[in-house]
Protein backbone atom coordinates (compact mmCIF):
# COMPACT_ATOMS: atom_id res chain seq x y z
CA UNK A 1 0.00 0.00 0.00
CA UNK A 2 1.25 3.48 -0.89
CA UNK A 3 1.14 6.17 1.78
CA UNK A 4 1.65 9.89 1.31
CA UNK A 5 3.39 9.82 4.67
CA UNK A 6 4.34 6.95 6.92
CA UNK A 7 1.66 6.44 9.58
CA UNK A 8 2.91 6.68 13.15
CA UNK A 9 1.41 3.29 14.04
CA UNK A 10 2.53 1.54 10.85
CA UNK A 11 4.40 -1.12 12.82
CA UNK A 12 1.46 -1.97 15.04
CA UNK A 13 -1.40 -1.79 12.53
CA UNK A 14 -1.86 -3.22 9.12
CA UNK A 15 -4.64 -3.03 6.58
CA UNK A 16 -6.99 -6.00 6.62
CA UNK A 17 -7.24 -8.25 3.63
CA UNK A 18 -10.52 -9.33 2.12
CA UNK A 19 -11.79 -11.77 -0.45
CA UNK A 20 -14.18 -10.62 -3.18
CA UNK A 21 -16.97 -12.93 -4.29
CA UNK A 22 -18.92 -12.29 -7.49
CA UNK A 23 -22.06 -14.12 -8.62
CA UNK A 24 -21.33 -14.16 -12.33
CA UNK A 25 -24.87 -14.88 -13.54
CA UNK A 26 -26.64 -12.38 -11.25
CA UNK A 27 -24.63 -9.33 -12.34
CA UNK A 28 -26.19 -6.75 -14.68
CA UNK A 29 -22.87 -5.18 -15.59
CA UNK A 30 -23.50 -1.66 -14.23
CA UNK A 31 -19.81 -1.19 -13.44
CA UNK A 32 -20.31 0.69 -10.14
CA UNK A 33 -17.99 -1.70 -8.31
CA UNK A 34 -15.29 -1.41 -10.95
CA UNK A 35 -15.51 2.39 -11.13
CA UNK A 36 -15.57 3.02 -7.39
CA UNK A 37 -13.27 0.35 -5.97
CA UNK A 38 -10.67 2.42 -4.12
CA UNK A 39 -7.93 -0.17 -4.76
CA UNK A 40 -8.75 -1.08 -8.39
CA UNK A 41 -9.28 -4.71 -7.51
CA UNK A 42 -11.89 -5.35 -10.19
CA UNK A 43 -11.85 -5.28 -13.97
CA UNK A 44 -14.44 -5.86 -16.68
CA UNK A 45 -14.40 -9.44 -17.85
CA UNK A 46 -14.23 -10.34 -21.52
CA UNK A 47 -16.89 -13.00 -21.14
CA UNK A 48 -20.64 -12.47 -21.31
CA UNK A 49 -22.95 -13.93 -18.70
CA UNK A 50 -26.29 -15.48 -19.57
CA UNK A 51 -28.04 -12.07 -19.51
CA UNK A 52 -25.50 -10.62 -21.94
CA UNK A 53 -23.60 -8.38 -19.54
CA UNK A 54 -19.91 -8.25 -18.72
CA UNK A 55 -19.58 -8.96 -14.99
CA UNK A 56 -16.48 -7.85 -13.06
CA UNK A 57 -13.56 -10.19 -12.48
CA UNK A 58 -11.24 -10.01 -9.50
CA UNK A 59 -8.08 -8.97 -11.28
CA UNK A 60 -5.96 -7.99 -8.28
CA UNK A 61 -7.24 -9.99 -5.28
CA UNK A 62 -4.18 -9.15 -3.18
CA UNK A 63 -5.14 -5.44 -3.25
CA UNK A 64 -8.52 -5.84 -1.47
CA UNK A 65 -8.66 -4.28 2.01
CA UNK A 66 -12.22 -5.48 2.79
CA UNK A 67 -13.72 -1.98 2.69
CA UNK A 68 -16.98 -3.49 1.36
CA UNK A 69 -17.80 -0.51 -0.83
CA UNK A 70 -18.52 -2.80 -3.80
CA UNK A 71 -20.96 -4.72 -1.63
CA UNK A 72 -22.70 -1.52 -0.55
CA UNK A 73 -22.88 -0.10 -4.08
CA UNK A 74 -23.94 -3.22 -5.99
CA UNK A 75 -27.61 -2.85 -6.98
CA UNK A 76 -27.91 -6.55 -7.84
CA UNK A 77 -26.61 -8.10 -4.61
CA UNK A 78 -24.08 -9.91 -6.78
CA UNK A 79 -20.78 -8.98 -5.11
CA UNK A 80 -19.63 -9.13 -1.51
CA UNK A 81 -16.54 -9.31 0.65
CA UNK A 82 -15.42 -11.58 3.41
CA UNK A 83 -12.47 -11.03 5.68
CA UNK A 84 -9.61 -13.29 4.65
CA UNK A 85 -9.51 -16.45 6.75
CA UNK A 86 -5.84 -16.08 7.59
CA UNK A 87 -6.68 -12.60 8.83
CA UNK A 88 -9.44 -13.98 11.04
CA UNK A 89 -7.02 -16.58 12.43
CA UNK A 90 -4.42 -13.91 13.16
CA UNK A 91 -6.86 -11.71 15.10
CA UNK A 92 -8.04 -14.57 17.30
Amino acid at each position, binding site marked *: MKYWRKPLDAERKRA*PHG*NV*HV*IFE*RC*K*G*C*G*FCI*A*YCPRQVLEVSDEFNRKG*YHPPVVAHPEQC*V*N*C*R*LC*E*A*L*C*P*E*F*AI*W*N*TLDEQEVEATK
Partner: protein
Amino acid sequence: MQEFELRASDFGLVLMNPNQLIVGRGTAEHHPMEDFLRMDRMPHIWCSTCGLGTCLTAFIAAVEESTIPREDIVVVSGIGCTGRAAGYLKFDSFHTTHGRAIPYATGLKVANPRLKVCLISGDGDLVSIGGNHLIHAARRNMDMTVICVNNFNYAMTGGQAAPSTPQGAFATTTPYGAFERPFNIPFLVDSCGATYVARWTALHVRQLTISIKEAMLHRGFSFIEVISPCPTVYARRNRLGSGLDLMKFYHDHSITKNFASTRECDIKFQQDIIVGKFVQKDEPTYLDAMDAQMKKTLGAKFVPYVGPMDPGADSGRTKSDART
Protein backbone atom coordinates in the same frame (compact mmCIF):
# COMPACT_ATOMS: atom_id res chain seq x y z
CA MET B 1 -27.50 31.84 14.81
CA GLN B 2 -28.54 28.45 15.95
CA GLU B 3 -25.79 26.13 17.06
CA PHE B 4 -25.83 22.46 16.33
CA GLU B 5 -23.84 19.72 17.85
CA LEU B 6 -21.97 18.03 15.05
CA ARG B 7 -20.88 14.47 15.53
CA ALA B 8 -18.28 12.54 13.63
CA SER B 9 -21.07 10.54 12.04
CA ASP B 10 -22.36 13.69 10.37
CA PHE B 11 -19.29 13.64 8.18
CA GLY B 12 -19.31 9.92 7.54
CA LEU B 13 -16.19 9.52 9.65
CA VAL B 14 -17.43 6.67 11.79
CA LEU B 15 -17.71 4.32 8.88
CA MET B 16 -14.12 4.87 7.87
CA ASN B 17 -13.59 1.82 10.04
CA PRO B 18 -14.81 -1.02 7.81
CA ASN B 19 -15.76 -3.16 10.77
CA GLN B 20 -18.48 -0.65 11.59
CA LEU B 21 -20.53 -1.44 8.52
CA ILE B 22 -21.14 -5.05 9.25
CA VAL B 23 -23.98 -6.56 7.36
CA GLY B 24 -24.33 -9.90 8.86
CA ARG B 25 -22.92 -13.20 8.19
CA GLY B 26 -21.51 -13.27 4.70
CA THR B 27 -19.66 -16.41 3.81
CA ALA B 28 -17.89 -17.43 0.64
CA GLU B 29 -21.13 -18.97 -0.68
CA HIS B 30 -23.75 -16.72 0.90
CA HIS B 31 -24.36 -13.02 0.23
CA PRO B 32 -24.98 -11.34 3.62
CA MET B 33 -28.04 -9.44 2.38
CA GLU B 34 -29.86 -12.48 1.03
CA ASP B 35 -31.38 -12.99 4.48
CA PHE B 36 -33.26 -9.71 4.07
CA LEU B 37 -34.47 -10.24 0.52
CA ARG B 38 -37.14 -12.38 -1.08
CA MET B 39 -34.71 -14.27 -3.25
CA ASP B 40 -37.50 -16.03 -5.13
CA ARG B 41 -38.31 -12.65 -6.71
CA MET B 42 -34.75 -11.98 -7.83
CA PRO B 43 -33.46 -10.77 -10.23
CA HIS B 44 -35.37 -7.56 -9.72
CA ILE B 45 -36.88 -5.61 -12.62
CA TRP B 46 -34.71 -2.52 -12.13
CA CYS B 47 -32.52 -1.63 -15.09
CA SER B 48 -28.80 -2.02 -15.22
CA THR B 49 -27.09 1.04 -13.62
CA CYS B 50 -30.31 2.06 -11.81
CA GLY B 51 -29.63 3.36 -8.31
CA LEU B 52 -32.57 1.70 -6.59
CA GLY B 53 -30.72 -1.50 -5.72
CA THR B 54 -28.07 0.61 -4.01
CA CYS B 55 -30.79 2.28 -1.93
CA LEU B 56 -31.97 -1.18 -0.88
CA THR B 57 -28.48 -2.22 0.22
CA ALA B 58 -28.25 0.97 2.27
CA PHE B 59 -31.64 0.28 3.83
CA ILE B 60 -30.72 -3.31 4.70
CA ALA B 61 -27.40 -2.20 6.18
CA ALA B 62 -29.20 0.44 8.25
CA VAL B 63 -31.74 -2.10 9.53
CA GLU B 64 -28.93 -4.44 10.47
CA GLU B 65 -27.02 -1.70 12.27
CA SER B 66 -29.99 -0.21 14.09
CA THR B 67 -30.60 -3.57 15.88
CA ILE B 68 -34.36 -2.99 15.78
CA PRO B 69 -36.09 -6.39 16.00
CA ARG B 70 -37.01 -7.48 12.54
CA GLU B 71 -40.61 -8.35 13.36
CA ASP B 72 -41.19 -4.74 14.48
CA ILE B 73 -40.19 -3.28 11.11
CA VAL B 74 -42.83 -2.71 8.46
CA VAL B 75 -41.95 -1.59 4.94
CA VAL B 76 -44.63 0.22 2.95
CA SER B 77 -44.29 1.42 -0.61
CA GLY B 78 -46.52 2.86 -3.27
CA ILE B 79 -46.51 2.39 -7.01
CA GLY B 80 -43.67 2.85 -9.43
CA CYS B 81 -40.17 1.55 -9.91
CA THR B 82 -39.37 2.32 -6.28
CA GLY B 83 -42.67 0.80 -5.21
CA ARG B 84 -41.24 -2.60 -6.03
CA ALA B 85 -38.92 -2.28 -3.01
CA ALA B 86 -41.51 -3.56 -0.54
CA GLY B 87 -41.96 -6.68 -2.60
CA TYR B 88 -38.27 -7.46 -2.64
CA LEU B 89 -37.60 -6.88 1.05
CA LYS B 90 -38.26 -9.78 3.40
CA PHE B 91 -40.05 -7.85 6.11
CA ASP B 92 -43.74 -7.35 6.78
CA SER B 93 -44.25 -5.31 3.65
CA PHE B 94 -47.15 -3.60 1.92
CA HIS B 95 -47.36 -2.65 -1.72
CA THR B 96 -50.14 -0.08 -1.64
CA THR B 97 -52.17 1.89 -4.13
CA HIS B 98 -50.69 4.85 -5.95
CA GLY B 99 -49.75 7.69 -3.64
CA ARG B 100 -51.39 6.12 -0.62
CA ALA B 101 -48.32 4.68 1.05
CA ILE B 102 -48.42 7.29 3.83
CA PRO B 103 -52.10 6.71 4.77
CA TYR B 104 -51.40 2.97 4.99
CA ALA B 105 -48.36 3.62 7.12
CA THR B 106 -50.28 6.08 9.32
CA GLY B 107 -52.93 3.44 9.91
CA LEU B 108 -50.32 0.84 10.80
CA LYS B 109 -48.60 3.19 13.23
CA VAL B 110 -51.81 4.28 14.93
CA ALA B 111 -53.12 0.73 15.21
CA ASN B 112 -49.87 -0.61 16.62
CA PRO B 113 -47.62 2.18 17.94
CA ARG B 114 -44.78 -0.21 18.67
CA LEU B 115 -44.09 -0.80 14.98
CA LYS B 116 -41.24 0.92 13.14
CA VAL B 117 -42.91 1.99 9.94
CA CYS B 118 -40.61 2.66 6.98
CA LEU B 119 -41.72 3.89 3.60
CA ILE B 120 -39.67 3.47 0.47
CA SER B 121 -41.30 5.13 -2.47
CA GLY B 122 -40.63 7.34 -5.42
CA ASP B 123 -40.98 11.05 -6.01
CA GLY B 124 -43.97 10.63 -8.31
CA ASP B 125 -45.75 8.54 -5.73
CA LEU B 126 -44.97 10.50 -2.56
CA VAL B 127 -44.73 14.08 -3.77
CA SER B 128 -47.10 14.15 -6.70
CA ILE B 129 -50.15 11.98 -6.25
CA GLY B 130 -49.48 11.49 -2.55
CA GLY B 131 -48.43 15.08 -1.97
CA ASN B 132 -51.29 15.90 0.35
CA HIS B 133 -50.65 12.84 2.48
CA LEU B 134 -46.96 13.75 2.68
CA ILE B 135 -47.51 17.30 3.92
CA HIS B 136 -50.11 16.19 6.44
CA ALA B 137 -47.96 13.38 7.81
CA ALA B 138 -45.15 15.94 8.20
CA ARG B 139 -47.55 18.43 9.84
CA ARG B 140 -48.75 15.81 12.32
CA ASN B 141 -45.20 14.61 12.95
CA MET B 142 -46.28 11.02 12.45
CA ASP B 143 -43.57 8.73 13.75
CA MET B 144 -42.39 7.12 10.52
CA THR B 145 -39.38 7.00 8.23
CA VAL B 146 -39.93 8.09 4.65
CA ILE B 147 -37.27 7.30 2.05
CA CYS B 148 -38.17 9.16 -1.13
CA VAL B 149 -36.12 8.00 -4.09
CA ASN B 150 -36.06 10.86 -6.55
CA ASN B 151 -35.25 10.01 -10.15
CA PHE B 152 -36.85 13.19 -11.57
CA ASN B 153 -39.63 11.53 -13.59
CA TYR B 154 -42.27 8.82 -13.69
CA ALA B 155 -39.90 6.11 -14.85
CA MET B 156 -42.12 3.02 -14.84
CA THR B 157 -44.83 4.49 -17.06
CA GLY B 158 -42.37 5.77 -19.65
CA GLY B 159 -40.77 8.94 -18.37
CA GLN B 160 -43.54 11.51 -17.95
CA ALA B 161 -42.68 14.80 -16.28
CA ALA B 162 -43.08 14.73 -12.50
CA PRO B 163 -43.24 17.59 -9.99
CA SER B 164 -39.54 16.99 -9.40
CA THR B 165 -38.44 17.28 -13.05
CA PRO B 166 -35.97 20.19 -13.18
CA GLN B 167 -36.66 23.12 -15.49
CA GLY B 168 -35.15 22.49 -18.90
CA ALA B 169 -35.11 18.71 -18.65
CA PHE B 170 -36.80 16.65 -21.35
CA ALA B 171 -39.47 14.11 -20.55
CA THR B 172 -42.10 12.27 -22.58
CA THR B 173 -44.73 14.89 -21.78
CA THR B 174 -42.35 17.82 -22.11
CA PRO B 175 -40.79 17.30 -25.55
CA TYR B 176 -39.63 20.93 -25.66
CA GLY B 177 -38.23 20.90 -22.14
CA ALA B 178 -39.94 21.16 -18.76
CA PHE B 179 -40.87 24.70 -17.81
CA GLU B 180 -42.75 24.15 -14.57
CA ARG B 181 -41.01 25.01 -11.35
CA PRO B 182 -40.13 21.75 -9.56
CA PHE B 183 -40.62 21.00 -5.89
CA ASN B 184 -37.75 21.51 -3.51
CA ILE B 185 -38.74 18.41 -1.55
CA PRO B 186 -36.62 18.89 1.63
CA PHE B 187 -37.93 22.45 1.90
CA LEU B 188 -41.50 21.21 1.40
CA VAL B 189 -41.37 18.70 4.25
CA ASP B 190 -39.27 20.97 6.46
CA SER B 191 -41.75 23.81 6.16
CA CYS B 192 -44.57 21.38 6.96
CA GLY B 193 -42.87 20.37 10.19
CA ALA B 194 -40.77 17.27 9.53
CA THR B 195 -38.32 16.69 12.36
CA TYR B 196 -35.61 14.87 10.42
CA VAL B 197 -34.73 15.84 6.86
CA ALA B 198 -31.75 14.63 4.86
CA ARG B 199 -30.77 14.28 1.24
CA TRP B 200 -28.14 12.02 -0.28
CA THR B 201 -27.47 10.58 -3.69
CA ALA B 202 -27.35 6.88 -4.49
CA LEU B 203 -23.57 7.17 -4.55
CA HIS B 204 -23.36 8.27 -0.88
CA VAL B 205 -24.09 4.77 0.41
CA ARG B 206 -22.26 5.10 3.71
CA GLN B 207 -23.82 8.45 4.60
CA LEU B 208 -27.19 7.19 3.41
CA THR B 209 -26.87 4.15 5.67
CA ILE B 210 -26.08 6.36 8.67
CA SER B 211 -28.97 8.65 7.78
CA ILE B 212 -31.51 5.81 7.43
CA LYS B 213 -30.33 4.37 10.73
CA GLU B 214 -30.64 7.74 12.47
CA ALA B 215 -34.05 8.28 10.91
CA MET B 216 -35.29 4.88 12.08
CA LEU B 217 -34.14 5.58 15.63
CA HIS B 218 -35.55 9.13 15.48
CA ARG B 219 -38.97 9.77 17.01
CA GLY B 220 -41.07 11.76 14.60
CA PHE B 221 -41.48 12.26 10.89
CA SER B 222 -38.14 11.50 9.24
CA PHE B 223 -37.66 12.21 5.58
CA ILE B 224 -34.70 11.20 3.43
CA GLU B 225 -34.53 12.14 -0.22
CA VAL B 226 -32.26 9.93 -2.30
CA ILE B 227 -31.22 11.22 -5.72
CA SER B 228 -31.02 8.15 -7.93
CA PRO B 229 -29.97 7.75 -11.56
CA CYS B 230 -32.61 6.65 -14.07
CA PRO B 231 -30.62 5.41 -17.06
CA THR B 232 -33.39 4.12 -19.29
CA VAL B 233 -35.78 7.06 -19.36
CA TYR B 234 -34.48 10.26 -17.77
CA ALA B 235 -30.83 9.94 -18.75
CA ARG B 236 -31.61 8.67 -22.24
CA ARG B 237 -34.05 11.47 -23.07
CA ASN B 238 -31.66 14.09 -21.75
CA ARG B 239 -28.58 12.44 -23.31
CA LEU B 240 -26.81 12.12 -19.98
CA GLY B 241 -25.26 8.71 -20.67
CA SER B 242 -25.68 5.68 -18.44
CA GLY B 243 -26.38 5.50 -14.74
CA LEU B 244 -22.66 5.19 -14.17
CA ASP B 245 -22.14 8.57 -15.87
CA LEU B 246 -24.80 10.07 -13.60
CA MET B 247 -23.07 8.51 -10.57
CA LYS B 248 -19.84 10.19 -11.71
CA PHE B 249 -21.81 13.44 -12.06
CA TYR B 250 -23.04 13.07 -8.46
CA HIS B 251 -19.48 12.37 -7.39
CA ASP B 252 -18.26 15.60 -8.94
CA HIS B 253 -21.25 17.83 -8.27
CA SER B 254 -22.58 17.02 -4.82
CA ILE B 255 -21.74 19.44 -2.06
CA THR B 256 -22.19 18.21 1.50
CA LYS B 257 -23.67 20.95 3.66
CA ASN B 258 -25.02 19.57 6.90
CA PHE B 259 -27.73 21.74 8.45
CA ALA B 260 -27.90 23.93 5.37
CA SER B 261 -31.07 25.94 5.01
CA THR B 262 -33.48 23.73 3.06
CA ARG B 263 -34.70 26.83 1.22
CA GLU B 264 -31.44 26.87 -0.73
CA CYS B 265 -31.47 23.17 -1.60
CA ASP B 266 -33.44 23.27 -4.84
CA ILE B 267 -32.12 21.18 -7.70
CA LYS B 268 -31.38 22.78 -11.06
CA PHE B 269 -30.90 20.69 -14.18
CA GLN B 270 -27.38 19.20 -14.14
CA GLN B 271 -26.06 21.66 -11.59
CA ASP B 272 -24.56 21.19 -8.14
CA ILE B 273 -26.66 19.19 -5.69
CA ILE B 274 -26.56 20.12 -2.01
CA VAL B 275 -26.63 16.98 0.11
CA GLY B 276 -26.48 16.38 3.84
CA LYS B 277 -28.57 16.18 6.92
CA PHE B 278 -30.60 19.37 7.02
CA VAL B 279 -32.92 19.12 10.00
CA GLN B 280 -32.90 17.13 13.23
CA LYS B 281 -35.05 18.26 16.13
CA ASP B 282 -37.20 16.68 18.80
CA GLU B 283 -40.87 17.53 18.89
CA PRO B 284 -43.90 15.63 20.22
CA THR B 285 -45.20 13.12 17.71
CA TYR B 286 -48.82 12.70 16.68
CA LEU B 287 -49.42 10.00 19.31
CA ASP B 288 -47.59 11.97 22.04
CA ALA B 289 -49.69 15.04 21.31
CA MET B 290 -52.90 12.98 21.27
CA ASP B 291 -52.08 11.35 24.59
CA ALA B 292 -51.20 14.71 26.17
CA GLN B 293 -54.40 16.36 24.97
CA MET B 294 -56.59 13.42 26.05
CA LYS B 295 -54.96 13.35 29.45
CA LYS B 296 -55.57 17.07 29.82
CA THR B 297 -59.23 16.76 28.90
CA LEU B 298 -60.20 13.42 30.41
CA GLY B 299 -57.84 13.31 33.35
CA ALA B 300 -57.63 10.00 35.17
CA LYS B 301 -60.30 8.43 32.96
CA PHE B 302 -57.93 8.33 30.00
CA VAL B 303 -56.16 5.03 29.35
CA PRO B 304 -53.41 5.38 26.73
CA TYR B 305 -53.57 2.91 23.86
CA VAL B 306 -50.40 0.87 23.62
CA GLY B 307 -51.30 -1.42 20.76
CA PRO B 308 -53.13 -4.66 20.15
CA MET B 309 -50.77 -6.68 22.32
CA ASP B 310 -50.13 -6.07 25.98
CA PRO B 311 -46.35 -5.71 26.24
CA GLY B 312 -46.36 -7.13 29.77
CA ALA B 313 -48.20 -10.32 28.93
CA ASP B 314 -47.50 -12.89 26.26
CA SER B 315 -46.75 -10.92 23.12
CA GLY B 316 -49.40 -12.79 21.17
CA ARG B 317 -46.87 -13.76 18.56
CA THR B 318 -46.31 -17.46 18.33
CA LYS B 319 -43.22 -19.19 17.07
CA SER B 320 -44.95 -20.01 13.82
CA ASP B 321 -45.48 -16.31 13.15
CA ALA B 322 -41.81 -15.48 13.40
CA ARG B 323 -40.28 -14.71 10.06
CA THR B 324 -37.34 -16.86 9.17
